[in-house]
Every structure is written in C-alpha cells, then in structure tokens.
C-alpha cells in the first residue's frame, strides 16, 4: 500500500480552519499536524473517478471528533472533507460540487451547527443537501429545533458505526 504522508489540511484544527476538498484523492481527512501526529493517508484516484464519488463535509471544532467521524464515513466509502467551523464549511460548499451530506457538530464557537443548518436550508443552491447534527448532549428541545429546521437526523456523540449506517442507508433511499 502506498504510504505517502502528504497532508491535505482537510481538517485544520483550531488555528487554521483548513479544509481542502479531496479532489483526486480518496476519502481521507488529514489533520494539519504540528509536531505530534498526522492522521490518515491519501490514496490517489483519477480526478474523474473522485469527483463522481459522493462527498461528505464533516464539521467539528474538535480535532478528535473530526478524526473519528471521518474514519467512520470512510468506512462507508465516502469521500470526506473535514473542517473545523461552519464558516469554513460554507466556503467549501461554495466550491465543491457533488456534496451528498453535511454532518456537523451542534456546539461550535461563532457559528453553531444549528446556524449552519439554517444557512444551508435558506440557500436555494444548498437546501437539498441533507444535514445531520451531532451533539454530546441529549437536549430534547435542541433536537426538536434542529429537526424542525430540516435536519435529516440528530446523532448523539460518540457517533457509532450503526449511526452512520442508518443515515447513509436513508440517503441511498432518497
């Protein structure tokens, strides 16, 4: 297996807010690393093949949770772009075609997952994209509010493989 360690900064952590789209690459999100760790290794596909693969945008200000949800989605064969803020997610959405889903943490600084959900659903270009909210807290009013705003699902963290299976199965049925 090819083991090139090229970074993509698909998930930029607190400092950067990076988020490069994975054009031409397999579904791996790479944390921009400082000293300690590099997560994930890209595998190169043809550009044409990569762009036809469904792309998921994962949004979470926690680098740990970004890594985990990215790995879970990768298991389901999704191409993943992981970013650390709603603002960055909107930037990516403006340039990335073929986004099949947004999965976002609820509680993030500056722009919450709910704020991001609202912006997506208010946009004529983006409103068809399913949005899944994740949260570590089970707050019924929060869940209801998100679902009423058009969220596809609301997952409690830590997210499990069964959660990803459920939402991806539902998306296939759409």
């Amino acid at each position, binding site marked *: 297996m090819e083991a090139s360690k090229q970074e993509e900064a698909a998930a930029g952590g607190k400092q950067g807010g990076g988020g490069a789209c994975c054009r031409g690459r397999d579904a791996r999100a790479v944390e921009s690393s400082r000293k300690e760790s590099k*997560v994930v290794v890209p595998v190169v596909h043809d550009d044409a093949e990569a762009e036809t693969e469904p792309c998921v945008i994962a949004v979470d200000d926690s680098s740990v949770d970004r890594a985990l949800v990215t790995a879970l989605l990768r298991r389901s064969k999704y191409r993943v772009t992981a970013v650390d803020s709603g603002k960055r997610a909107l930037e990516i959405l403006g340039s990335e075609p073929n986004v099949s889903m947004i999965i976002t943490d609820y509680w993030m600084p500056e722009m919450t997952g709910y704020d991001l959900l609202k912006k997506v659903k208010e946009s004529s270009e983006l409103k068809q994209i399913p949005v899944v909210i994740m949260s570590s807290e089970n707050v019924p009013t929060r869940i209801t509010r998100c679902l009423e705003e058009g969220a596809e699902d609301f997952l409690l963290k830590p997210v499990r493989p069964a959660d990803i299976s459920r939402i991806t199965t539902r998306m296939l049925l759409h």
Partner: protein
Amino acid sequence: MRNLRLSSHSRRAALGDRGRRAHPDEVVAVGGYLDEQFCQVEDLQDDASPNFTEEVVTLFFKDSARLISNIEQALEKYPKDFSRWDAYMQQLKGSCSSIGASRMKSECMSFRDCCGQGNPEGCMRSFQKVKREHGALRQKLEAYFQLVRQAGPAGAATRPV
C-alpha cells in the same frame, strides 16, 4: 503490514489489570480508565490507517492539555464565572467521551455538577481530580502504545471476541 492490536493479555498488562479474570470484551475497561468507546476507536484502525488509534489519542492529549490550561486560567481570571468554567469543561468532557476516557469523563461531570451548584470550592477540588486523571490516563496510554510498538506483527492482535 504490522498489526498494532494487542493480545488481550498484553492489553491487560498495559492498562493495569489487577489480576481479575477479564472477559475479552471487558479487557479495555480494566481499571476503569477506558470504556468500550476506546474499542470502537481501535476498530477504526486498519491497514490504510495503521496508527489511527495512537493518532487520535495524540490529538486528544493535545486538545485536552489546551482545555485544561484554559480552565486553569479561567478559574484564576474569572472567579465564580461558572458559565465560562462549565463551557470549557463541557468541551473536555466531550473529548473524554469520544475516546472512552471514562474516569476522566466522570471527574469532568463532577466539576460541571459543582458549576451547576455554584460551588467554587467543589469546582477547584474536582478540577484537581480532572488533572490527576488526565495525568494517569496519559501514563497508562503511553505504556499501552509502548507495548503495541514492542509487540510487532507477531505480538498482536487476537481481537477480543
């Protein structure tokens, strides 16, 4: 490709088994430092990401050190700002939950309870416990990954059934 999963025996040794018989599914829970979520993290490791678990743990300690530092500063600079203290601890608790750091998560919850009660002394005591658990967890996991590295391809992974 080197398989970094430890046999159940080695994992118990690394995480501090006190000699009790562990059902294979309970191996990682020995000592209570980690719960089943840690197994879920390990299950995401594969040939394409052979060091995934250690990388996630590294991210956790990087994040948690920052959050603990933030809380420490907040306790000093913003006395009785329970809302601020709680917000930081909520983030830390979330990270603990994500990697299965159950004991540390429990102390985080105690801290948040004290915030809810408006109990600054309780918060201070809880915070010291959070820091102790953080240090202990770091030691345990460093030992664990040391074993993983030493185990090599021959040593591993009988995956717990």
